[in-house]
């Protein structure tokens, strides 16, 4: 599903964001990615989404080598992943329903499909009664669930969540991760960047720790592999 082979990324200003990163995330896994800020987590996500390109090494996502993906094919690659942001990124002047439908419009779905699928997805995240509400009328947790519904609406094979609980009441964070676990149980790969050790401890999932641009710990790998 996602494979990094000796990947290095240095930005034009000289910042070495990732150094010789090797890892493999299989289909259907749930992975926490932890690390202090500036460790290279965002770069890691950007590389997967093809927002940045690696300087060396190979990245394979859904069977495609990203170094050979043409620029105009990037949007189609992104349709195989759903992205959840820390700051929700909901459009204020659109209702919950429209925010989710927006993602379907973008990929050219028919109005009929949109009318069928959006309520179903809002039901899945427990917001069927808030379809007509605006983001400002929702709690942080609810807003993030809208974000999740939007990420899921086009049926991606993986969810990339960039600190999805970062702006949410700690009590409600568990709810969001529960929801992600449920989505994962249905077969979607989950990649979740987080700062919150409570969550990582509580959910007993694979944890990849990035520090100084390198993978310093990977709970699924043996210690020897990490050191090499």
């Amino acid at each position, binding site marked *: 599903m996602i494979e990094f082979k000796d990947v290095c990324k240095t930005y034009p200003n000289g910042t070495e964001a990732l150094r010789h990163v090797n890892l493999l995330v299989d289909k259907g896994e749930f992975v926490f990615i932890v690390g202090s800020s500036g460790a290279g987590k*965002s770069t890691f996500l950007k590389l997967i*989404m093809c*927002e940045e390109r690696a300087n060396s090494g190979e990245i394979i996502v859904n069977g495609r080598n990203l170094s050979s993906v043409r620029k105009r094919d990037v*949007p189609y*690659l992104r*349709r195989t992943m759903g992205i959840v942001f820390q700051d929700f990124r909901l*459009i204020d002047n659109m209702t919950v329903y429209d925010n989710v439908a927006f993602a379907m419009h973008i990929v050219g779905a*028919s109005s009929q499909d949109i009318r069928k699928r959006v309520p179903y997805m809002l039901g899945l995240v427990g917001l069927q009664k808030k379809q007509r509400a605006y983001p400002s009328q929702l709690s942080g947790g609810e807003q993030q669930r809208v974000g999740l519904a939007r990420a899921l609406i*086009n049926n991606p094979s993986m969810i990339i969540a960039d600190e999805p609980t970062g702006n949410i009441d700690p009590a409600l964070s568990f709810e969001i991760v529960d929801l992600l676990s449920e989505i994962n149980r249905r077969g979607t790969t989950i990649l979740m960047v987080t700062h919150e050790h409570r969550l990582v401890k509580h959910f007993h999932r694979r944890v990849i720790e990035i520090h100084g641009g390198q993978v310093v710990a990977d709970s699924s790998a043996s210690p020897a592999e990490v050191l090499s």
Partner: protein
Amino acid sequence: MKLNSLGYLLKEGIRNLWTNRMMSFASVGVLVSCLLLTGAAVLFSMNIDSAMASLETNNSIRVVLDDNLPTLEGIQVGEELKQLGNIETCEFIPKDEAIKQYLGDDEELLAGLVGSDNPLPDAFRISLTDLSLYDETIAQIRSLDGVQQVDDYSDIADKLTSLDNLVATAGFWIVILLSVVSLFIISNTIRVTMFSRRLEISIMKSVGATNAFIRLPFVVEGVIIGIISGLVSGVLLNIAYGSMVEAVTNIAPFFTPVPLGPMAMRIYLYFIAAGVLFGALGGAISIGRYLRREGGDIIGW
């Protein structure tokens, strides 16, 4: 592009325009002035062309005879003129007739200027069959005995031509300048929309929208600005030209301006086409620049 998307994108473009109406208004204003100036320059040029054409078709050339040339000899000159070959009409205008044409029928004015006191000479008004032989024929006429001078309108034609050239040159540069300004303003207007919608753009990119899909609402916005500008400037030019024609015909009744009626449709069409072109270009430029520079960011924009 699927049909589903097209309707959606059109709606989005119109929404952009309305949310950002002050800047849209400014864009329309600048584009209207640009189109109006272009239109005015073209109409001016057309009028000069038509004036010159009418000068040529009337091509009344006045052959002035020597002062105090006896009438009989004058008639003789007329016969010689007719024999030149390239003369279509040849009409004798005796000096008494000429002074009346010049001063009108005012008896008082005419009183002291008739008969031998008339300062005007006898003349012929002629027109040519073949205008391409103009210079040769005029030279032949000049060489005839008894001909004092030949008043043709070539000097007026020269002046009109040079005025036409001046207007065309000045108009060309003004239009180029204004085109650049309109493109700049339109693309900035659309940049403002884009900036206010960068959240949407980042979401669109994260969900996998193609650049064409992201670009289209902004191009639609530009095209609508263009259509509105085309229509407004078409109406304004029609009104302005109408009242100008009226004023000019009052001042100079001998001059018939080019009627706008038959061209009105074409003016609208050209204006709208030019507006659409500019609008679309402005939109495409700004969104292209944005997508290349800042719009690539999804995480941490």
